[in-house]
């Protein structure tokens, strides 16, 4: 990708090798610029009601762009992961930004022309590719810049993905209201929805540009001042070798970690998916009817906060206690918290809140800690590509969690109060126990899967020259 002048092309990895003195604290904001943007996908519900009323579509149809977006996230992360590692983070961020922004623009055109399929294709299909590539784009770079604190670094970025919806939710709602496109208006102005999509696209294009402008890769041999790899806390789980993405998926460690992530996410979604009705069913008798709805909305907000902060806090703690130990906490204590939730029920609101907050903080932390766990097991060589493949566990859990909780809640529609959720909570306890066992079985990767040092060094030299 070198330019005709001989200077490396703008998107190449060679072009973004950091000069001496480049601060590594510029890399987290570069990553956040991308993750805070693509995290908007979790605020899709802000558009739903307006689209349903304005374009005369049902709830299933209005959820399609979001569903397709999440499916495309998993698929594109798995398919393009190797390309992201090969081409470097600037290339990945530019492609991710282009797809994400194009998704909004195509969706805007779709609403403006009354062609809803364009909204699905644009936001879900094209934008979804941007989500997947954007999600993994800064991960391996952050790990290389923060070899001493990989959990902290990836925790910051992946907290941004949780924070994206925090920004987009109030922003989108106020924009739709200003343009006469809020669902509460007597008549929804579809041109207002189209304009809102257009503005989202333009603003995110500018906001994400910080990411691809600032991102840098460390020079070969760079290390943080005063840090020596040999001084790293002695931990048998942290390997010094590298494994390729193709070989990683042949190891039991990859699939054990896949189970760990999948079941940890499923258990979190168990509460997150139905947080509002769960709160109302638990405290209908003890909360005045006029404040119950507002309290349930506040409960969802508290869980969002716990989900976001857990990504940063627990992932940072994993740098101190080790990745295997922190997943023991997420899965083992998580299962015990579900037991407590089932036993205490509606009798103690503080215990209910504490259990829910911790479960959701473990849910978010599971996402944020996994890149560092992958680094420990498989090295930094193709960690982005391996992370991309592992995200298929998220897609699976995204289907599994809601299906379990909704199916059981529907089947027990005639049961009142907390008992409605008891079977679902018991399933979550079993899943977390299986995840705990899978984590216990994870051992360092066998030497036969390690890449020869010459291969790893050869590829690095190729991109540095």
């Amino acid at each position, binding site marked *: 990708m070198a330019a005709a002048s001989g200077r490396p092309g703008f998107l190449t990895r060679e072009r973004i090798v950091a000069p001496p003195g480049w601060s590594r604290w510029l890399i987290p904001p570069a990553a956040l610029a991308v993750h805070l943007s693509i995290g908007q996908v979790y605020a899709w519900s802000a558009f739903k009601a307006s689209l349903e009323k304005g374009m005369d579509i049902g709830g299933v149809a209005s959820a399609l762009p979001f569903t397709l977006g999440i499916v495309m996230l998993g698929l594109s992360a798995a398919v393009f992961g190797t390309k992201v590692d090969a081409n470097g983070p600037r290339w990945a961020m530019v492609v991710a930004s282009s797809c994400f922004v194009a998704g909004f623009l195509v969706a805007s055109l779709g609403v403006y022309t009354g062609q809803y399929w364009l909204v699905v294709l644009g936001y879900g299909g094209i934008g979804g590719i941007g989500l997947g590539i954007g999600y993994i784009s800064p991960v391996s770079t952050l790990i290389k810049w923060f070899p001493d604190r990989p959990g902290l670094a990836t925790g910051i970025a992946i907290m941004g993905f949780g924070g994206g919806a925090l920004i987009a939710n109030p922003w989108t709602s106020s924009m739709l209201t200003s343009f006469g496109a809020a669902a509460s208006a007597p008549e929804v102005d579809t041109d207002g929805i189209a304009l809102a999509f257009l503005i989202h696209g333009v603003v995110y294009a500018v*906001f994400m540009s910080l990411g691809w402008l600032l991102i840098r890769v460390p020079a070969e041999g760079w290390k943080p001042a005063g840090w020596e790899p040999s001084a790293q806390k002695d931990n048998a789980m942290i390997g010094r070798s590298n494994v390729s993405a193709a070989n990683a998926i042949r190891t039991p460690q990859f699939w054990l970690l896949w189970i760990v992530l999948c079941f940890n996410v499923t258990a979190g979604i168990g509460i997150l998916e139905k947080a509002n009705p769960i709160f109302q069913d638990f405290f209908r008798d003890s909360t005045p009817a006029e404040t119950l709805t507002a309290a349930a909305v506040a409960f969802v907000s508290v869980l969002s906060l716990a989900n976001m902060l857990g990504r940063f806090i627990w992932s940072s703690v994993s740098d101190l206690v080790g990745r295997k130990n922190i997943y023991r906490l997420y899965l083992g204590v998580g299962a015990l918290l579900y037991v407590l939730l089932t036993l205490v029920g509606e009798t103690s609101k503080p215990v209910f809140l504490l259990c829910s907050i911790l479960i959701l903080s473990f849910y978010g932390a599971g996402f944020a800690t996994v890149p560092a766990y992958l680094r420990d097991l498989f090295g930094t060589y193709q960690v982005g590509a391996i992370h991309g493949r592992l995200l298929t566990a998220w897609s699976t859990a995204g289907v599994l969690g809601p299906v379990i909780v909704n199916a059981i809640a529907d089947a027990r529609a005639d049961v009142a109060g907390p008992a409605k959720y008891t079977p679902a909570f018991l399933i979550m306890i079993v899943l977390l126990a299986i995840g705990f066992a899978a984590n216990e079985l994870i051992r360092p990767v066998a030497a036969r899967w390690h890449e020869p040092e010459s291969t790893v060094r050869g590829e690095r030299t190729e991109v540095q020259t």
Partner: protein
Amino acid sequence: MSNPASSNPASDTTGRPPVALVVIAWLWVLVPFLYGLYSLVVKIPALFG
């Protein structure tokens, strides 16, 4: 802003850290994040109301 010529090992102590750039970059992401956080936190008191 970029300098492709630096292929020699570097450390945090060489060169001059771009302090102003670090401040601007963090403000760029923190300001909208704090707006979102504030919008969320103001809803929480209803939980105990």
